[in-house]
């Protein structure tokens, strides 16, 4: 009994930390898919470059963790905005195969660029001293950094949802996802809205990549290695939905942790089967966008 409880607590804890990272990275993908109708297979590359920015700025430029994180988010969001103007906007509402081809091209380029800039090894990530070590809650010890991930993740999710619910930008974004033509007809500048949301989504991915560099190690293979996880979160959650992917990230994060805990050898098989079942059950996602 005691053992079962302790297993449940650690699965819940590590699963939750993992789910936060998955959600932060995937939510931007859901928005680009729902809002612009673009299957952005290169989305993982934004998270990867966020991770590289954090680890490299800390290691080489000696920046503190927070500064490196913010710098990484700003850099990647700016990069995302440029790519949106130059490349992505031509794909909106266009041929799916063109989207696949272009974004796979970007993935290939980002792999090679990361390899050229930073080598093939996993980046070493050291949490800042204040977040290193473990903390003890109710007689159990937990890694401090993961606890911080859960708390900061929850705070960011709350901030994001509140922002999308309460601000003018959020209302415009929701209107455009629900009915782009009507949104345009009432005077919303959808072109600008797309650019801002794309930059925001890339920035969030960079934040997730940077914060989660301990859970999903940063290496040139990153954009391909975790792409399936990000796509799964969006497909299971509901493309275009903001809350659905959170549910899916929780489900996937906790069940992946549980399967790896109990059946490390065959965990991935069951996760894939579970995903397939969920897709068959709810083809438009757990929380379909309108």
């Amino acid at each position, binding site marked *: 009994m005691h053992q079962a409880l302790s297993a449940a607590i650690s699965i819940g804890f590590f699963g939750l930390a993992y789910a936060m990272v998955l959600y932060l990275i995937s939510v931007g993908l859901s928005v680009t*898919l729902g809002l612009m109708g673009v*299957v952005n297979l290169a989305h993982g590359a934004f998270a990867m470059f966020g991770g590289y920015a954090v680890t490299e700025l800390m290691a080489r430029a000696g920046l503190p963790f927070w500064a490196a994180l913010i710098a990484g988010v700003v850099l990647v969001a700016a990069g995302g905005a440029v790519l949106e103007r130059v*490349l992505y906007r*031509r*794909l909106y509402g266009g*041929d*799916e*195969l*063109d989207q*696949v*081809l*272009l974004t*796979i*091209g*970007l*993935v*290939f*380029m*980002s*792999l*090679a*660029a990361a*390899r*050229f800039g930073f080598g*093939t090894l996993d980046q070493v990530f050291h949490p800042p001293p204040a977040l290193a070590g473990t903390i003890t809650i109710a007689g159990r010890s937990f890694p401090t950094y993961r606890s911080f991930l859960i708390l900061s993740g929850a705070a960011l999710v709350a901030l994001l949802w509140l922002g999308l619910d309460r601000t003018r930008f959020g209302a415009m974004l929701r209107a455009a996802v629900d009915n782009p033509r009507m949104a345009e007809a009432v005077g919303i500048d959808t072109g600008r809205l797309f650019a801002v949301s794309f930059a925001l989504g890339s920035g969030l991915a960079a934040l997730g990549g940077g914060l989660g560099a301990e859970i999903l190690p940063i290496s040139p293979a990153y954009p*391909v290695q975790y792409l*399936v996880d990000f*796509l*799964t979160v*969006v*497909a299971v959650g509901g*493309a275009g939905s903001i809350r659905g992917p959170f549910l899916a990230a929780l489900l996937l994060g906790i069940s992946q942790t549980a399967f790896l805990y109990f059946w490390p*050898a*065959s965990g*991935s*098989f069951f996760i*894939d*089967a579970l*995903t*397939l079942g969920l*897709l*068959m059950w709810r*083809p*438009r*996602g757990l929380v379909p966008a309108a």
Partner: protein
Amino acid sequence: MIAADPVAALAARHRWRWPEALPWLAAVAAFFLFPGYLALGAQILASILYGLSIDLVLGYGGIVTLGQAAFFGTGAYTAGLLAAHGMGAPEPGLIAAGLAAAALGALSGLAVLRLSGLAQLMATLMVAAMLQSAADKASAITGGADGLQNMAVGKVLGLFAFGLYGRTAYLYALAVLFLCFLGMRALVHSPFGRSLVGMRENAARMTALGAPVFARRLIAYTIAAGMAGISGALYAQSTGFVAPDSLGFDRSGNILVMLLLGGIGRLYGAFIGVPLFMVAQDRLSDLDPAYWYFWIGLGLVLMVRFARGGILGLAARIRRE
């Protein structure tokens, strides 16, 4: 260009035109011109067949798949396991591989084809991922991550052994590709093939016309799975080795890129995209092993920007102008 007599133009669609002989002439010429590269050549020919299977599903059927490796790998393992257990005759192995992959295609198609869009794409991916995990874990049967190694492949037609230089493998792959291509060409020009295109363009209208959309898509998916299985078997028999990555995501993704590069839904896209990609991969990774992905990626981005519809699409546009 509008034909004077549209009925005659439609009736003439399936007639052979002289440029269609070019790929085969090139393949035979390559046999004599590049005797040192026949092993690579055999892999290219097998991959063209794999590309044709994607063209049937995606180009003609409009079914978005990122999991065709499920069938490629099933074929490769079927041929590999037969050869490892004393049934190394290549031709029956090839047929068994095609049938096994087709059976899996029919079965998974029942589920996958009920979905559409992103859910369908993810479902195809999940089927392949599940098989890959299974192949990885069932190491008693498949050799696990180390791959299946003790294959003993027999002689083609009982006469020609697979040698070091790949001469047999090349001609064998070429013959198999040619036969499969004849079947595929007849299929896409048949009323069945035309109805697939109709469903790709407007499934609702085809349903209204009384076409059994689901059943026809399932048949196309099954046939394409069989082709992918035969292609996987060609790979396994010519290299004498199968590993779980034959079921992997790269195997599904790269072939899609190759086909899109050549031009999709045009029957000959694979004959252009696959050799181009694989020869470039071979050459560029010799010159610049780490970074060849950058150049191929840049090529893809520029292509979407300036040459939509792949190389054949570009050629068709130039000819029209």
